[in-house]
């Protein structure tokens, strides 16, 4: 921990809509962004379903919050770790996920991808490098 900044990891392991965890996790991330901590998000197991393209909730009458992930860059939340094995197991590839980017202020506002595909063992490294882990 440097200068009172902690490394926060939000762990998402549940699919959206069937339960409210994914939406309420995102609400914590948005509020937490105001606290200037070092924030990362992890998506593994069914959590990878949160990031898929073409979600359309009109007929179930539930708010579609998937576009909010694309706004995370504006909140300086720019590290979304997605586990490759979890995608593979579910018949998904990175192309099935929304394109989520941020503008890097340290690199002349170049647009860069926020999604970082990692292996299971790299995900374990990400988790082991945190100060605070919030699970949803």
């Amino acid at each position: 921990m440097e200068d009172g900044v902690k490394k926060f990891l939000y762990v998402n392991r549940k699919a959206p809509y069937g339960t409210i965890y994914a939406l309420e996790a995102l609400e914590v991330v948005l509020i937490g962004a105001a606290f200037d901590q070092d924030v990362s998000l992890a998506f593994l197991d069914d959590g990878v379903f949160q990031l898929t393209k073409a979600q359309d909730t009109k007929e179930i009458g539930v708010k579609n919050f998937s576009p909010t992930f694309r706004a995370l860059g504006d909140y300086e939340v720019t590290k979304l770790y997605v586990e490759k094995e979890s995608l593979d197991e579910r018949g998904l590839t990175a192309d099935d996920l929304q394109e989520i980017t941020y503008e890097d202020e340290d690199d002349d506002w170049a647009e860069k991808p926020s999604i970082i595909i990692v292996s299971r063992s790299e995900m374990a490294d990400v988790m082991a490098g945190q100060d605070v882990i919030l699970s949803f």
Partner: protein
Amino acid sequence: MATLHTVNKSPFETQALLSCLGHTKAGDTVLLIEDGVYGAVGNTALADAVAGLGGAVTLAVLAPDLKARGIDEGRLMDGVKTVDYAGFVELAAEHDRTQAWL
């Protein structure tokens, strides 16, 4: 820099325990609580998978949850540690961080 992982669901119901064990590091402890304690029982269809993935970590189980479910400690897999709530607190304090596999 070790982690205390907690798992509160039966491995026969969800993947939480197997996923947790797939993300542990040497020196970590996995504490099974609530319905998670069923994952510590030996001689089940999942015991080999749990023992195989859990090789480098300490497996522990919350004794009050074990007793509540009528599981005798003699039925646990070899090497599983039992703790009470005070022991749970000690584990949390001894490790650098905790992660709940909900």
